[in-house]
């Protein structure tokens, strides 16, 4: 038995639930038998991966669904050995090159070279090409992206790259211009609701629209998360109640609590407390941008209107520094300290105003 997410994943381009015209375009692309390198981008949970798999299926038939896991071994210039997981079928290979950290350049180059060159040996395979699927291209270092651009051109005869990224702004223009970019927006709330309703109908459950709406609002446009949430709801309580508790990930609650603590008390001791919370988040593997975004969101929701502007300004600056520097915690902490200062200043000026008024 598999999760609903996997069970109800559409497998063919003709059966998608949303972005139907786009699916049609993709089919047109495949029908011509050849296509340029592709770059799928969109927020997570919008269905990029699903679309790529559908595209491959359209191209090669059901054979692409026979997946196997493998380990790829690479050796870096200073003799460090790297092991990267790959998922492959007879027609494609998929890796997440950003897993290699700073050695991603080697991984990208070696992988494409191997894939492209082994193909050339084959006499019969000339009209065809192989698909290399690279995930999280936006997380690759600039170096690796440059290398990618070079290899992309070199081996275009024998392989096609399908790149997958969350945000296109971190992909260098050189790659963007060499690919046909395909934007995959998140599904709208209505679309999510109708998908959830559909799934429940197929499972023989009745889902109150109200609950579906609440799930859709809580999932940040992430369909996968919405379906998982819905399934969790079902396990925790069935029959559904429209007001029932929707399980949210712990880290999210944790970040919100942290934000409240910042607003509650401003002192060096409290900063220490926040620091340990930040440590905890980081070592749970929560990416920094997520921490930052949610922290900011919650702060903006709960702070006074007059300090909002200042908070945003400070956030934008520290968030940027975080990318310039190397130790995340330095900047997160400086951000929190600055927030506390803003809050303190606000409170004191507020008190002054009250005193003057009275």
């Amino acid at each position: 038995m598999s999760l609903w997410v996997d069970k109800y994943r559409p497998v063919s381009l003709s059966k998608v639930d949303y972005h139907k015209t786009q699916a049609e375009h993709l089919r047109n692309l495949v029908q011509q038998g050849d296509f340029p390198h592709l770059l799928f981008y969109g927020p997570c949970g919008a269905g990029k991966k699903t679309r790529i798999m559908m595209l491959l299926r359209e191209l090669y038939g059901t054979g692409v669904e026979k997946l196997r896991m493998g380990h790829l071994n690479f050796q870096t210039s200073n003799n460090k050995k790297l092991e990267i997981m790959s998922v492959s079928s007879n027609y494609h290979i998929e890796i997440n090159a950003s897993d290699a950290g700073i050695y991603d350049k080697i991984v990208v180059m070696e992988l494409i070279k191997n894939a492209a060159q082994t193909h050339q040996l084959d006499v019969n395979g000339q009209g065809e090409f192989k698909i290399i699927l690279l995930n999280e291209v936006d997380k690759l270092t600039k170096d690796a992206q440059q290398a990618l651009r070079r290899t992309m051109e070199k081996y275009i005869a024998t392989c096609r790259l399908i790149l997958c990224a969350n945000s296109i702004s971190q992909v260098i223009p050189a790659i963007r211009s060499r690919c046909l970019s395909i934007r995959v927006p998140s599904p709208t709330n209505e679309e999510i609701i109708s998908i959830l309703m559909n799934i429940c109908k197929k499972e023989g459950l009745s889902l109150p629209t109200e609950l579906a709406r609440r799930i859709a609002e809580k999932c940040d446009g992430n369909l996968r998360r919405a379906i998982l949430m819905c399934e969790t709801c079902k396990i925790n309580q069935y029959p559904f109640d429209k007001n029932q508790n929707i399980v949210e990930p712990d880290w999210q609650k944790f970040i919100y609590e942290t934000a409240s603590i910042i607003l509650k008390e401003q002192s060096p001791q409290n900063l220490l407390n926040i620091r340990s919370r930040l440590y905890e988040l980081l070592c749970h593997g929560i990416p920094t941008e997520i921490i930052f975004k949610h922290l900011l969101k919650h702060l903006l929701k709960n702070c006074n209107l007059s300090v909002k502007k200042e908070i945003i300004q400070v956030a934008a600056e520290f968030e940027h520094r975080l990318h310039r520097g190397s130790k995340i915690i330095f900047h997160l902490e400086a951000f929190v300290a600055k927030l506390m200062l803003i809050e303190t200043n606000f409170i004191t000026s507020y008190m002054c105003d009250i005193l003057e008024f009275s």
Partner: protein
Amino acid sequence: MQAFITSNKSSLNSGESSTKQTTKKDEKKNKKSIPWVEKYRPHTVDDIVEQNEIVATLKQCLAGADLPHFLFYGPPGSGKTSTIIAAARQLFGDMYKDRILELNASDDRGIQVIRDKVKTFSQVTVSSTRSDGKPCPPYKIIILDEADSMTSAAQAALRRTMEKETKSTRFCLICNYVSCIIQPLTSRCAKYRFKPLSKEMMLNRLKLICKEENVLYEEKSLDVLVDACGGDLRRAITCLQSCARLKGNKSLALEDILEVTGIIPDHYIIMMFEVCRERNFEKIENFVEKLLSEAYCAPQVLEQFLELIISSNDLTDIQKSHICEKIAVCSWRLQDGASEYVQLLDLCYCVINVL
């Protein structure tokens, strides 16, 4: 990797019969897969439009005058590479491929390459007759594309080679920014600036291609495409081809062009400005989130927003300058990898502040 290789072979063996059957189809496919940019490259110097000065010079050279070293610079897609290749084709006829060496930034171009590859190529002397008996100039052409991304050390190494090999070789340096080429090199070359192509010319070219390739289009969509590409014909043609592929046999609509070029529909940008005007913080946050969930690319948002601000009539110059400054800062931060969400919010709040 091993699994990948073996599996590949086995699959091909099993599918051998089917591939044989489809060979004919494959050939057709191969023809089709030539990028239109290559297919519609100008073949003769006369085909080149708008760059009158260089065309005149090249014509002289074709008529028998000596060819100097060239330095072509100008915005991308204005026909620099096409020009020199067309000239070479006319000069050398069928054997032009042997007579030119094209190195672009994608190749490794350290000093070593300049020393070895360029030297060995330039040291081979060539005859002054073509294979078909017609006379042709006894030299070869080395095209260094994207020369501005060469290290200055490599450029310095080049200048000696250039002088030494003048007898047998002509160099053609191509770059976007002439300021990135070291002085000694520019002084050795005939410099030509390529102007961005005019709108009408691009439109004509695109229409011609559409006609040749049987692509249906809406009049307005080509206009938008030309606007979006801003004088870069290569990008326009590539986009056109992508669009045509996506659409199949249907006619190209405006939205398709926007989708492929990554341009954000105007109403979003106008809405962004309107939301800021309303001074409603919550609405701004929702709007930014919506924008990002549509997967629009933040630098592009900034670019289009900048245009909106500059062309806006109801902002004072001081307001404009404040907003532009913020846009500059935000786009710098985005370049460093900062979060799109935070930076866009920062920009919106700044706009509120200024209004």
